[in-house]
């Protein structure tokens, strides 16, 4: 077991070295995520039950289950290499998930298996963090203001819906991934996976409401392959 781990880490480090050294030679997969059809209208959130949060918004914020941008761009889509890339050891710096104004920042947090996860509460009220993990160990903790960050990590790949029991509108997603080749689509739906050593990959896009899509792509040398995803949007 331990030796296996050591071996894995060795391999991984090697891979890391090659990829980093191979930055000029590394290939890139980039593209846009868009939707077709009419997405559900994002509704304003009534936070009157939590004045300390409500007063932080001039106009009420809206839900974030489907965030769109200009010309059908789809935001918050996790694009990652689901096959073809070697598993990598977790980076040492921790992924930070912040509760601010009774919202999760970021709404979708992607990080690696066994990478330290830090949950912060920057509100004046106590929050409750309840990641509804199915494969990983489920936990459910409250975090009063002024308490130290909750530190945890997940040892299996999974997309975990996160909720706050105290504030029902607070929902987010943990994307626990096996390697560092992932990207979350930005406001214009764009994403990019750099530093891919030559090889055949499966690129997968995950959206919390619209599910998963995959495409095959082969990288030879330092080219940039363009891959686009189009999700079907439903009004309800």
């Amino acid at each position, binding site marked *: 077991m331990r030796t296996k781990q050591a071996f894995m880490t060795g391999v991984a480090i090697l891979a890391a070295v090659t990829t980093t050294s191979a930055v000029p030679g590394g290939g890139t997969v980039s593209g846009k995520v868009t939707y077709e059809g009419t997405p559900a209208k994002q509704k304003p959130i009534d936070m009157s039950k939590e004045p300390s949060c409500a007063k932080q918004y001039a106009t009420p914020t809206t839900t974030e289950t489907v965030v769109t941008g200009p010309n059908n761009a789809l935001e918050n889509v996790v694009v990652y290499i689901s096959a073809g890339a070697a598993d990598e050891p977790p980076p040492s710096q921790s992924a930070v998930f912040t509760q601010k104004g009774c919202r999760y920042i970021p709404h979708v947090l992607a990080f690696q298996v066994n990478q330290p996860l830090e949950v912060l509460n920057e509100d004046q009220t106590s929050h409750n963090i309840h990641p*509804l993990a199915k494969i990983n160990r489920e936990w*459910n903790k*409250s*975090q*009063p*203001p*002024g*308490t130290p960050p909750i530190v945890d990590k997940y040892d299996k790949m999974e997309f975990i819906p996160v*909720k706050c029991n*105290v504030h029902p509108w607070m929902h987010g997603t943990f994307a626990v991934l096996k390697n560092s080749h992932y990207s979350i689509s930005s406001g214009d739906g764009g994403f990019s996976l750099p530093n891919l050593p030559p090889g055949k990959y499966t690129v997968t896009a995950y959206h919390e409401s619209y599910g998963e899509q995959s495409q095959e792509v082969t990288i030879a040398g330092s080219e940039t392959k363009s891959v686009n995803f189009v999700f079907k949007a439903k009004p309800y």
Partner: protein
Amino acid sequence: MEETSAQQAHVHAPPEGFLRKYVFSLDHKVIGKQYYALALLAVSMGMALSWLMRFHLVWPTTRIPGLELISKAGAPGGIITPEYYLSLLTMHGTLMVFFVLTNAPFAAFGNFFLPIQIGAEDMAFPRFNMMSFWTTLAAFLVLILAFVIPDGPPISGWTSYAPLSAVGKDAGPGMGWGMNLWAISIAIFCIGSLLGALNFIATTLDLRAKGMTLMRMPICTWAWFITSCIALLAFAVLLPACILLILDRTAGTSFFIPSGLVVSDRLQPHSGGSPLLWQHLFWFFGHPEVYIAILPSMGIVSHILINSMRKPLLSARVIIYSMMSIGFLSWMVWGHHMFVSGMNPFSSLLFSFPTLTITIPATIMTMIWMGSLYGANIRINAASLFALGFISMFVSGGVSGFFLAQPSIDIVLHATYFVVGHFHMVMGVASIFGVFAGTYFWFGKMTGRMMNETLGQLHFWLTFIGTYCIFMPFHYLGLVGNVRRYSAFVNDYTGPLLPLHKFITIAALCTGAAQLIFIFNLIYSRYKGAPAPENPWNGTTLEWSIPSPPPWNNFGGKHPVIYHDPYQYDVKGSKGDYIMQDSPEPSAG
């Protein structure tokens, strides 16, 4: 099996060896002390929990040093989380109601003194007696195990309303194994209490000494007897309820869980259960439980008052009949806990009347006690002070019952601090006062050394004033509509109430600290106290006719014969002002 143990009780040789003497003892006196020790441990824990709760309520952001070591998840950085507050609340209630209020006045004193006061050498079934203590201890251990498991203690309050208590870990932290442990512990406790009650009843019916007719039993014996009759029914109902709850939680049945519940975003795989069913079963036990807690203290207090007044009560029979009718009525009132819980509004009315009616026997008892004080010569000492304090406390807690017995008023006062104040005074503090009185009164008999009187009276004054300072304000908070069981006050109206809450907390911390005097007094007197004479208070009942502490077979193999009613005080023409129950000396006719 029964009969061997019964045989044991009467022809067994003195116990040999440490284990037989002090641990697995068949001697009702040792078992009584064991119960007392358990109650003492439980009450210290319960009080510590209430300290944490009160502290957190008024200083929510202040670190409590060291608490993190006890529960890292429950108190990150020494600050209590909402769920841990509820865990503390649940454990406080459960420990206090089951392991203190049921054990101390009933099981502890009852075990020690009931056989002696009826002139028996031991309980009818000493083996059962030992078993009932060890089952109770097991229940206690299972319960506090919830503190150390990662899941933590349950958060559904001592009433554990379904479906919150039934759906499992989705309901929140502590509702996984923590809740299982709670249900198992209470089920075990029921078995222990049933064995105990059975033993008390059989003993009282069959082991009375020659001449000890039922009406010649001391009032506290009567109280223990009536209480064990109530307990026999109450715990026989709670046990099935717990079994059904455990099945709902672990076997996927749906006794208490209805269809289509979505807890923590998960649709629960149950259907058709009835949450009200749990409430009915629980309160059918729960309300009689209140009287299980208070009746023994009533008996003890009457016993002590008579002795300190040096004259009998106006009528002991009336007291006994009142206790009986309270015990009887306690079976028709459970619904008054459920006025606003969706029960048929007509049944609310049905439950309201017997509830109001219970105040009649209660008032009768109070008036008999006070009326008997008239023209007496009251001996003031720690014991009698606590007995008098009991009357005052019982009245204060009792009158608030007028409000809660009425459905219409319950609409606004239900689930507020008013309720908390009410039951803490009438069943909590009052019954504990009875225990204190009993301790100061009987400690000499139980250990062979008298308790320190000065410390005792100091303890009384601090406790008496302190408890009023804590629990009277609870009523005021309730009148404003301050909701109970909140781990923080986030409502708009609670701001102005905070000073009152601070006052309560400080009072609670001080009163709690005052209990250290009592603990010290117990330990100090146990070893350094003045040796106790056979009859320090010039009492008339049988416990005063034997050495302190009594020999293993109570009456040294002799079988007392009873010539008198229990309380022959202020008898003209007798040498002293009293005649022992077993002395052939004629009492003035």
